[in-house]
Each structure stands twice: as C-alpha cells, then as structure tokens.
C-alpha cells in the first residue's frame, strides 16, 4: 500500500441532488479509508479559482489527480461508471472566460474546474475522472438504489486509481477541453465498470 506519489482524490458536485451528489455523498467514506502517506482526499467544491490558487501555492505539485464526479450523459444507464482521462486542449477563449466567470460567481462544475485548471497549468500528467451516470437531476439527500449498489465498486476503483494509476485493464475515454462543450452522444463502447 506504500506510495511515494503525491496524489489528490477530489470530489466535485452539488449537495442534495441525489446521484448528482455522488462525490459529496461518498467523500466521508473516502476520507475514512487508510490511505498511503502521499494521498490527500478533498472536497473540490469551493471554486476552481480558489483551487487553482491553492494548488499553485503547494510546495510540491501533485503527480496524479483522481476526481469522482457524476455527469448526466446520453446513452448511459443510471449507475454506469466510466473512466475518463483528461487530455488538456483548451476550448476557445470566450468559453474559458465564461468558465472563469461562472467559477468566480459560485457555479460548481467539473468542466469549469478542468478547463480553468488547464488554463492555469495546475494539472499533473495524469488526471482521471471516475464518472458515475446519475440520470436526470432530482433533489434528495441519498443515492438511488442503482447507484447505491455501485458504491463498493466506485470506492474500490477510486482507491485503485489513486494508488496505482490507470492500468491496462482500464478502458479509458479521452476528455478534451476543445470538445468538452460540444453537445452530442458519446460512444462509450462496451467497457464499463
């Protein structure tokens, strides 16, 4: 279980939105785990600008970031888990400005976090997203049974990625800033956790 790498496990998402809040809901369970010395577990809901500023001030940068998120995507069933790798590539400047504006005025969004982080060059070489399909946005404190049933898998996956990084067994979808805001159905193929 030893790891010399500096790794950040972060959760992003609004509270009290059922499956959309999978990050905040599972944060206590992630924090309770016995992590290797280099791994930090943090809620990353407090604003991309503030997160950028905090990461810029770190004496040593992270070598890997694993984000637990829930983004509604077409073509997935509730509870499907997909793994994404952030590959950078910024959208146009108007879109970046919009992201900064939203971030500075309180919007919680993993897309904004990724783009703003990329713009200000805070991301390490490996940024992985564990993305759980939440289904339509609904209000409530608890996860639905479909996602609740996947909690052990989610926790196990986040832990493995944090400690070992992505391996050959992982089917990883690329995620890029220049296509992040395009609408359309993504082809997820057959690989699912």
């Amino acid at each position: 279980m030893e790891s010399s790498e500096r790794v950040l496990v972060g959760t992003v998402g609004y509270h009290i939105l059922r499956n959309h809040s999978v990050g905040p809901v599972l944060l206590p369970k992630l924090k309770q785990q016995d992590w290797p010395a280099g791994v930090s577990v943090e809620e990353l809901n407090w604003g991309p600008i503030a997160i950028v500023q905090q990461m810029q001030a770190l004496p040593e940068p992270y070598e890997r970031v694993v984000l637990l998120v829930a983004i509604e995507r077409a073509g997935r069933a509730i509870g499907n888990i997909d793994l994404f790798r952030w590959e950078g590539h910024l959208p146009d400047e108007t879109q970046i400005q919009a992201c900064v504006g939203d971030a500075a005025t309180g919007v919680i969004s993993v897309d904004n976090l990724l783009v703003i982080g990329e713009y200000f060059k805070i991301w390490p070489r490996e940024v992985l997203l564990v993305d759980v399909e939440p289904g339509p946005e609904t209000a409530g404190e608890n996860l639905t049974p479909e996602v609740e049933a996947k909690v052990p898998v989610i926790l196990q996956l986040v832990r493995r990625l944090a400690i070992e990084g992505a391996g050959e067994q992982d089917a990883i979808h690329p995620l890029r800033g220049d296509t992040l805001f395009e609408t359309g159905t993504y082809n997820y193929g057959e690989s699912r956790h």
Partner: protein
Amino acid sequence: MCFKNLPIDFDEQGNAFLKEGVADPYEYKVVDLGEEQDKLKSLLSKNGFIRNVDYDPVTRVAGALAFHSVVDLEKRKVLSTNSMATLFRGYEVILKGRDPQDAAYISSRACGVCGGVHATTSALAIEMALGIKPPPLGIVMRNILLAIEYLYDHPLHLFLLSGPDYSEELVGATNPEIVAKAAKTAAKNQAVHGYKTILDIMKDLNPLKGKLYLEALSMTRVAREAYVAIGGKYPHPQSVVPGGISVTVTITTLNEVYTRLIKFFDYGQKVTGIWDDIFDFFLECDPEYAKCGIRPATMADTGVWDRPDYYDASFENCDTWGNARWATPGILIDGEVVTTNLRELNAGLEEFVEHSYYEDWNGHPYKTDPMGMPLSPNHPWNKDTIPKPGKQSWRDRYSWDTCPTWDRLPMEAGAYSRMYLTAKAQRAPASKFMENTGHSMKINVPKHTLPETTLEWSIPEHWNAFERNRARAYCIPYSAMVAMENWLLAQQLIREGETKVSTPYKIPKKGTFIGFGAWGAGRGFLTHHLIVDSGVIKNYQIITPSTFNAAPRAPWGAPGPYEEAVINTPILEKYNQPDDYKGIDILRAIRSFDPCMPCTTHIMSNNSDHVVSREVTTCACGIE
C-alpha cells in the same frame, strides 16, 4: 411626505395613514403591451435595418439572464427591450414551513457570491421578528465580514465581468478608432497605477491574459482569506447566526484580517485611478458615451454596517438605527433623497407579477406595519410566491423576475446606490476615514506601500454605465475603510473585555412574529421579509438587487432598469453591414449594473422530487 403615488399620508405628528375617500386605494392600471409589439412587428417586416437582437444568455454576468432588444441599425437606436430572468429562484418556497434557525444557512445558497449577505439578512429578519439584540462585537464583526465580501465582489465585477468591455481586444473589434486614440493619450494617474498610456491599461484589461484581470483574480484570494478568518468558509459562511456570530474572535483573528485588509488600501487607490482614467478617456473620446446606459438616478438602498451603540434589531427603532449606519438607507428619486427611514423604505415596497411567471395571490393579511403605516396587498409581507411556468411572450409574461417598485417606481440598486445615498444624505457618522459632503464622498486611505491619500468620488451629472462602474471602483476603498473603522472598534471592544459575540435565543412555539432584514449585497439592496408562525416560517420573501434591476415591465408599462437603460443607449459601435453588429454598447449598459441572476436553483414540487427549474425554456427565438 415621501410618497407621491401610494395612498399614504402623514398627520402633523408624522403618523402615516391611508388616504380617505379612495375607493380602491391600491388599484393600478394594467396596460396592453401588445400595441407596442404590433408596431414593432410592422417595422421589422418593412425595414431591413430594424432587427431583433437577442442575448441568451448574456455572458459575463452571474447567473441566467437573457435580453431581447429591437434595434434600428440605420438610425443607431434601440427601439424596444425586454429583460428576462430565465430560471426560477424558489427560495421563498423552499423556506416555507422550516425552522427559522435554518433560514440563514438555506438562504445563503441563493447566491454563489453573496451567500454571507443573504445569511446575515436572514439573521437580521429573525432578530427583528423575535427581538434579539446581538452584542457589540457580534455586530462589528458582521460589519467587517460584509465589507470583506464587497472587497471580493467589486474587483471581480470590475475586471472579470465588466472590465473586458473596455479592453484592447474588445474595443479593437468594435471601435478601433478608440484604440488608436488610446495609444496617444497619457494616463493621468500614472503615479498611482504605473501605466503610461490609456492603451497600456486597456491591454492589461484583456481577459485571461491581462495583468489587471489576473491581479483581480489574486485579490479575490486575499479577500477570501480574510473572510474565512471570521466566516469559517466562503461563499456560505458557517458562523453567521441570528444574534451575532458563532465564532470566537481574538486579537489573532483581527491580525489575520488586518494583514489582508491593508492590501486593499493600495489596491483601492490603483483601481480608482485606473477606472477614472479609462472612463474619462471614453467620455472625452465621444461625449455620446455619456448616454450609454443612462437613466435617472432613481435608486433604493437598504444601508449597511450597523453601529453597535444604535442597533437593537427592533422594528420600532429601525429608523434610528438605520440612519446611524455607515451606509445610509433610503430612496433617491432623480438624484434627490426622498427618505432615509427604513420604515418608509419598507412601506413603499411592492412586487408585481403581471409580466412574470407567477400567479397573483389573494389576501391582504398585513394592512399596516407593526406601527400602523399602511402596507399594500403587494407588499412582501403580504405576497405569496406561486410559480406558474408558461409561454414566453413580450405581450404578456416573459420573466421569472418580478417587478418590485417603491412608491410605484422601478428602482435601481447597486453598490453605487449605497455610496450615492450616503454621500448625498450626510447622515452617516463622523469618521476619520470618510467624509460625506452632500455632493461627494471623501475617503482617507492610510498608507501601505503607497503613501496615504484622500480619494474623492463625486456625484456625477449623468447617471450612466460608466458612472456606475466608476462608483463601484470607489466602493473598494470605501468598503476597506469601513472595515478598518470597525476593525479598530473590534480591537477596542476586545481590550475592554467585551468579547461576547452572540446572544442566545429560542424560537417561540406559539404566536406570530414578523420582521425584515435590510442589508446589502455587493450589488446593493437586499431585503428578506419573514413571518414566523407557531415556530416555523410561514412566509419568506427575498428582494435582491437584481430583482429590481432585471425587472420586466411594470403593470402600467414602465420599463425595468435594464430595459430603460438599454432603450436610452445610443449605438456607437462601428460596423459596415448590419450583420457585423456585435452590440457592445447594449452589453456595456447591462453589465454596468453587475447583474446577478441567482442561479443553480432547485426546487422540489409537491410529493415528488422533480426539479422544476429544468422545465423552463429560455430561448428567445420565435417569441411573440
């Protein structure tokens, strides 16, 4: 006598009463907006230069705002405007039936910037309803917290949201002749900000890369750090409670705040110097810019920053403690102060929903305030929020915003209203940091790395987009100096052993209690009206600054402030073909208000967990 339109009169002792002999004292005319739309439709079909111009969303504003206009690109005039809040903000519904102790935490979520302001306004409403007077240090620390919140908010607006409208990149795309002139124009305040020419400033206003843009981002961190020393976290503080604050304050806390606060002494000097240079330059370049976003200086402000020796939370004394605030509450009509009394400010408030997606409500349970001043059926204490999504139509309903008025007049709200009223009314306490002259506010800024100086904001002749932003820039040193004044008070209280920060209270399980919180967001005026009945919230009504500013037409046809400001805006942008038109003048006018459309709002409908906000269609295309 402050009311001209509402049927409220005063006797010789100053007691208000409802005018006698009026059959329906609160009736109002509802005009048909269809006639105007028919005329526009006809013009649009005949003249290729007359076009619909829709912004959906308006970018670089907080939250979901859309704006529809009809412009004549040949005559360079705006013919018609409609401001649309495109999402439902349902906190009034969410808070019903809840424990009043939760209100500060829940209402804080109404905004991702001004959460602390909502929390405090909520606390103030409960304090008034239940008679809870916070201890002096609790009051003073809330003042510091608020001032710091402004120090986060104003740079954010000036450089991230509105600032790019004056940058080399954007001005070069719409008015290249101004950029050429800027290169040859010396900056008057070089000694303070270091920029030799106006173009040098404009280059650093460029979004994402400009040094001023990036510096503003870093200053938001300084303000946040100071804020969390008291509030615990930002933007939704954990320590603001009815009765004061819930965090121990020590000299160490104050020192942590001070080391951040002093950075705004220099920054305030720099920012005012920059925006004075930029706005003076634009207005000298083309005096027509003075008409951009122009409307009468008709504004409302609640006043902020309570004096610990005056504030007792009571409704009975609200005029006294309101007038003692470091920022004076009141109403300005066309630049003249008509009242500084919170009771009159409260009694003149009404909200109308004829052009909004709400059902009208029945009932008039509070015919007067607790001291007998008449209240309209449309007053917030009488209002009920009944959302009713429907078809968007310029002839009928087109916004989730309501139309609030004071004495039946649409009102503007902003950080600048706070400064304008305070400077004009000359009621604020004597201070070594601020002097109100009746035509200006002098702000004595102590030295940090820059030498000490006196900055002076003067009430402008014309109230327009440039002056809104200029005044907002001066609100940075103003807020910093109020924070400093309160910081010194806090030091004194701690030295004297007055370290209590909150007053315990209990929510009565029986009886009905009413109150209102009057505080100010970064964007100005904020009220929360509260009715507690049998231990729970029976009614809760929030009026934000953008509720005023983004309002749709009044029932009698008067445009809301954004609508009026844009109608009055000349089109000064250069374009060869109508298709090249970008609309920078309209956007400058709208952004000068610092729109904040509370967003990310979610509400559960009865007996389900369905989210209503997702049902709303916002696209303005094809709307009648």
